[in-house]
């Protein structure tokens, strides 16, 4: 469509037809202030801050509701406009409490900014302000009516954005008040979007309020560690006596894949990091009891025992379990350590999706996976299985808002009436466990129609749906872990009948995808290369064990039979989460690296206290395949990163760690450590040096040293280093992957976490627990936010 030409403050501006005047001004670098206008939410025209002068119009016009037209001449800063805005601020401040010195929003308040800009410093009012008592709406949401300026952003983001509709307006006139959906409290998804979008301090967070002044925090942009969606988040960090305290999680940086979005876990559940049960020193089992020890003693013991067992019984006597929440560098290092230092392929992880099957099916198909950003732009989406509203809150946000803002068509096939059916043009409920039949039917196997047909979804209806889907362009096919193995191949076969179809395979944990991509499999090297295709790795590492190793269940059996003698578990809890038999390991040497004394750590001989994702730098890959940077927020006394611990164990084994971590490379040699990775602070010079490969890797504990190797060797990971370090998301493609291996579908164990439950980290979050306890008090039928 041709651009429309307008003049703003004498400056010529061109913008597409249909653009709102406020956006056209913004595109020309002219700021028109507003409280109620918010991109991608419905228009209000309520705050009157965006009044501008449009030539030939007698009255000032609201720029947020005016659509530009050819030849329009606009002034945005005349004395009349300035006065109009000033008087709006004056009237707002009349009833506003002016408790800025103790208000959470003080310092990051739009009303303060407007007052500063338009100068309503002297009050014309001497009469008593209207007042109401503050209310607590949920464990994490507080509402202070006098501070509210009634911009209705919270009401809209909750309804339009979240499809929860838990907020509304009651009363009228000056008595108007934002009110929760259940009389005096909220029953909702507790996403906290209302707090985040509030321009003033009317809505405040129970987890954050009265803890700090905003300028006393360091703001660290990183990636959320809770689910597999990988939202960009900004942590508000303060120093504390244990090293650091994260006091806030929010998304003040809207540039991430999540834009405005953050869910309840991302916003509040960072406090597991400061849980009192956190391990802060190594533990060694002495006389049957886990006893505090020194790091030196622990590493010496582990190194000695691993070496003894490897040398006496061979590498196949050691089993390694990796993590779904450690970084790509740590995962890569771990499998390399297993294969090169321990000499075993016995490495596995908690699998929650069948990525090897997808990689195999998409091999050689470029651009066949969808990024999280693609989901927001796709003209059509097919969702089979999973319940993104509970398990992938960001994905659900992308889907919902794509439907709302772009009129995308959503097709939902699920065994449950999932909430996203409300956005669907077509929802079909199928019997539990028949998702695979759907995939086969879609691929053209009509014999599969019988098991999924019923009176409401007849065979004809299925055929019609398939025809309709085949007619879509750029369809994004999103599937849960219900679809595995051969069924994934069927789905990909169906996808090849749709022009430019793309796939998203849903896994459960923050770096489940990274764990798979980095080769935490007994029969797959990084990039889904089978052991038969190990050439590149053999050359690089100087040898790889040839036979595939044991899967996790096989390791348990082997331990039971007495063959497996050592078990090295990094950031995983197979006893607690996968229910493996703890007694199988009673006579084995078990090493666990974790933050807490998990069920698995309880049976260990050595437990090493691990740093979490907020306490280290590195990269993670979300379920879509978007690679993002994890920026270290700070350190907590007593914990080490898994990366460092693995390197130290190798060192204690007498292994040459430079063969594990290719450090001491780089051409610039006068610096100490790579500051970007170590200090957690943005160091532009460091970023540039890193990006150019000039920063020396002086330390074997520097994960960026192994990132070089990953970028060189793992297909899809050759992304721009500068973009990565700058905090931008980059999509990896599976097209260059290895051939993959057919796995037993039973090896996949979905976590089945919900919005409010999380067995891994969330159970140590006070904020999350308080919300859950609060919900348990409510009558069951009212809990559903649906």
């Amino acid at each position, binding site marked *: 469509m041709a651009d429309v030409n307008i003049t703003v403050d004498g400056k010529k501006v061109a913008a597409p037809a249909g653009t709102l005047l406020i956006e056209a001004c913004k595109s020309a670098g002219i700021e028109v202030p507003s409280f109620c206008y918010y991109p991608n939410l419905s228009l209000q025209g*309520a705050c009157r801050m965006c009044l501008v002068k449009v030539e030939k119009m*007698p009255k000032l016009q609201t720029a947020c509701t005016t659509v530009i037209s050819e030849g329009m001449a606009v002034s945005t800063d005349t004395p009349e406009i300035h006065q*109009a805005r000033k008087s709006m601020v004056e009237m707002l401040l009349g009833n506003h409490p002016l408790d800025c010195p103790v208000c959470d929003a003080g310092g990051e308040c739009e009303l303060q900014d407007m007052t500063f800009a338009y100068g309503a410093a002297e009050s014309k009012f001497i*009469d*008593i302000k*209207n007042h109401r008592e503050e209310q607590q709406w949920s464990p994490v949401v507080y509402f202070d009516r006098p501070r509210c300026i009634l911009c209705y952003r919270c009401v809209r983001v909750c309804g339009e954005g979240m499809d929860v509709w838990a907020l509304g307006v009651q009363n*009228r*006139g*000056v008595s108007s008040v934002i009110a929760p959906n259940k009389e005096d409290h909220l029953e909702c998804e507790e996403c906290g979007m209302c707090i985040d979008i509030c321009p003033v301090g009317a809505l405040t967070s129970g987890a954050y309020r009265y803890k700090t002044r905003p300028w006393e925090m360091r703001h660290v942009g990183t990636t959320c560690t809770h689910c597999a969606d990988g939202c960009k988040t900004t942590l508000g960090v303060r120093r504390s006596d244990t090293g650091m305290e994260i006091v806030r999680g929010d998304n003040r940086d809207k540039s991430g894949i999540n834009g405005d979005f953050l869910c309840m876990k991302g916003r509040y559940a960072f406090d597991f990091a400061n849980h009192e049960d956190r391990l802060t020193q190594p533990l060694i089992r002495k006389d049957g009891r886990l006893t505090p020890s020194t790091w030196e003693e622990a590493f010496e013991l582990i190194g000695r025992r691993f070496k003894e067992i490897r040398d006496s019984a061979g590498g196949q006597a050691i089993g390694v379990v990796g993590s779904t929440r450690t970084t790509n560098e740590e995962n890569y290092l771990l499998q390399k350590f297993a294969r090169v230092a321990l000499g075993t392929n016995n490495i596995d992880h908690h699998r929650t999706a069948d990525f090897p099957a997808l990689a195999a099916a998409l091999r050689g198909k470029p651009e066949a996976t969808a990024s999280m950003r693609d989901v927001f732009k796709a003209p059509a989406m097919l969702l089979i299985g999973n319940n993104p509203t509970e398990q992938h809150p960001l994905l659900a946000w992308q889907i919902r808002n794509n439907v709302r803002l772009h009129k995308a068509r959503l097709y939902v096939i699920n065994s449950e009436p999932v909430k996203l059916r409300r956005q669907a043009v077509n929802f079909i409920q199928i019997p539990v466990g028949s998702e695979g039949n759907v995939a086969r039917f879609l691929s053209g196997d009509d014999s599969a129609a019988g098991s999924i047909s019923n009176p409401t979804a007849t065979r004809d209806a299925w055929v019609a749906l398939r025809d309709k889907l085949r007619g879509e362009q750029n369809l994004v096919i999103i599937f849960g872990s219900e679809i595995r193995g051969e069924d994934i191949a069927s789905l990909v076969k169906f996808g090849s009948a749709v022009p430019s179809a793309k796939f998203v395979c849903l896994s459960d944990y923050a770096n489940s995808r990274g764990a798979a991509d980095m080769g935490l499999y007994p029969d797959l090297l990084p990039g889904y290369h089978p052991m038969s295709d190990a050439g590149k790795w053999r050359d690089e590492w100087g040898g790889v064990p040839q036979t595939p190793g044991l899967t996790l269940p096989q390791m348990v059996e082997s331990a039971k039979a007495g063959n497996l003698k050592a078990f090295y578990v990094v950031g995983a809890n197979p006893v607690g989460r996968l229910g493996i038999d703890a007694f199988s390991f009673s006579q084995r040497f078990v090493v666990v690296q974790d933050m807490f004394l998990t069920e698995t750590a309880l049976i260990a001989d050595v437990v090493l206290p691990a740093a979490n994702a907020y306490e280290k730098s590195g990269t993670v890959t979300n379920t879509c395949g978007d690679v993002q940077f994890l920026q270290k927020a700070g350190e907590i006394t007593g914990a080490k990163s898994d990366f460092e611990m693995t390197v130290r164990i190798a060192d204690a084994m007498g292994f040459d760690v430079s063969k594990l971590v290719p450090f001491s490379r780089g051409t610039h040699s006068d610096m100490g450590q790579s500051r970007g990775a170590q200090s957690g602070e943005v160091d532009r010079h460091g970023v540039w040096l890193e990006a150019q490969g000039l920063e020396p890797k002086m330390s074997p504990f520097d994960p960026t040293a192994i990132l070089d190797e990953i970028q060189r060797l793992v297909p899809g990971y050759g992304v721009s280093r500068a973009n990565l370090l700058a905090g931008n998301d980059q999509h990896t493609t599976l097209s260059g992957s290895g051939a993959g291996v057919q796995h037993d579908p039973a090896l996949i164990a979905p976590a089945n976490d919900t919005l409010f439950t999380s067995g891994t980290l969330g159970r140590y979050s006070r904020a999350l627990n308080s919300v859950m306890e609060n919900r348990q008090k409510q009558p069951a039928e009212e809990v559903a936010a649906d």
Partner: protein
Amino acid sequence: MADLVSHPDEVRVVSRRFGQGAADIDRYLQLDGYKAVQKALAMQPDAIVNLVKDSGLRGRGGAGFNTGMKWSFVPKQSAKPKYILCNGDESEPGTCKDRLIFEHDPHAVIEGVVIAGIATGAHAGYIYVRGEYRYLLEIMQKAIKDAYARGFLGKNIFGSGYDFEVYWHGGAGAYEVGEESALMESLEGKRGIPRIRPPFPAVVGLWGGPTVINNAETLASVPHILLGGAEWFAKLGPPKNGGTRLFCLSGHLNRPGVYELPMGYNLKKMIYNVGGGIPNGRTLKAVVPGGSSCPLLTAGEIDVSMDFDSMMKAGSMLGSGGVVVVDDSTCMVKFALRIMKFYRHESCGWCIPCREGTDWLDKILVRFHSGGGLRKDIDNIQYLSENMLGRTFCPLGDAAAMPTISIVKKFRKEFEDHLDGKPCPFEKAGAAELAMA
């Protein structure tokens, strides 16, 4: 039920059937009822629109927009159904004319709605009656039921092949809903808050369909225009101000009441002749010429023709026809306060200047009138009102600001007389309470 009044200067068009039992459908038929709609059914829609345009009929709700012109904005083709919406949410202080129409001549409103429907190609109409007019709603309900029973409404009206449904709806008590887009929100079951315009109702209105929204008096005038002709109607008033008007005379008058006078009738004559002048030997101080939203006129400004254009020239508005007469025993500060209390109560709260402005004006005026006024308050009242004017989401903010500005400007001395802790000079004089309809 209100008592009917009369005066020889009256020209009875809309009030022709008042007091004659025309709420009864048979009586209405005897008084030429439902003839106009039958005539309309035989006409081309465009011809009806042109007839109404030529009659010079202008909206009786207050804005005075040419009715035929408004109808002509409705697109001929529409994917969504079109609607006629009768605005009977009469809430402007000083205005009490639509209630008489609903009470005495409800079928005329129905007839007007159907004719508007035929003219614009709509097949459904809604009659929205102010919430406080509960007793009138019953009369309206019966009228609609009777019209259906006779085949005047529903499928194939008058055997013409044209279908037209009429529904009634009672308000919940909000002045704001008299604003046409808030009226549509209310009718759709939402909070009565105005909509962003454009789009205008004629294009995107009720449930997204093209909608004509007319005041009850406007619609009740339409059948008379069809029967009497455009020229006859236009000539009842001055140029571009066709027809008559129901003027609601209230306040300090000997003979208050609703009188139907030709458009352009002189205001001074209206007060002293028709309304019988000021009682108790008092003298005139001010007049609210067209409902509480209009700037006031002083005693010296009343020799003016009561039509839309002349009133505009006089610095006020014809508005909704509510003429409130104020005598010299009235405290104008209290008068301003009384008006502001109303607007503060009725502000929907959607936009900042109206919500906060009316609240602060009310607070200041309360304190001011009770003796706590400061000199700078007078300027602040003016400042607040001027900063509301023209900047609110809907005209309610203007409606609160305009009379206030005019009162401060024209009666500043009365404000000054309240200063320095002095009690209200009118309270001790034992002034008569001002009754606003």
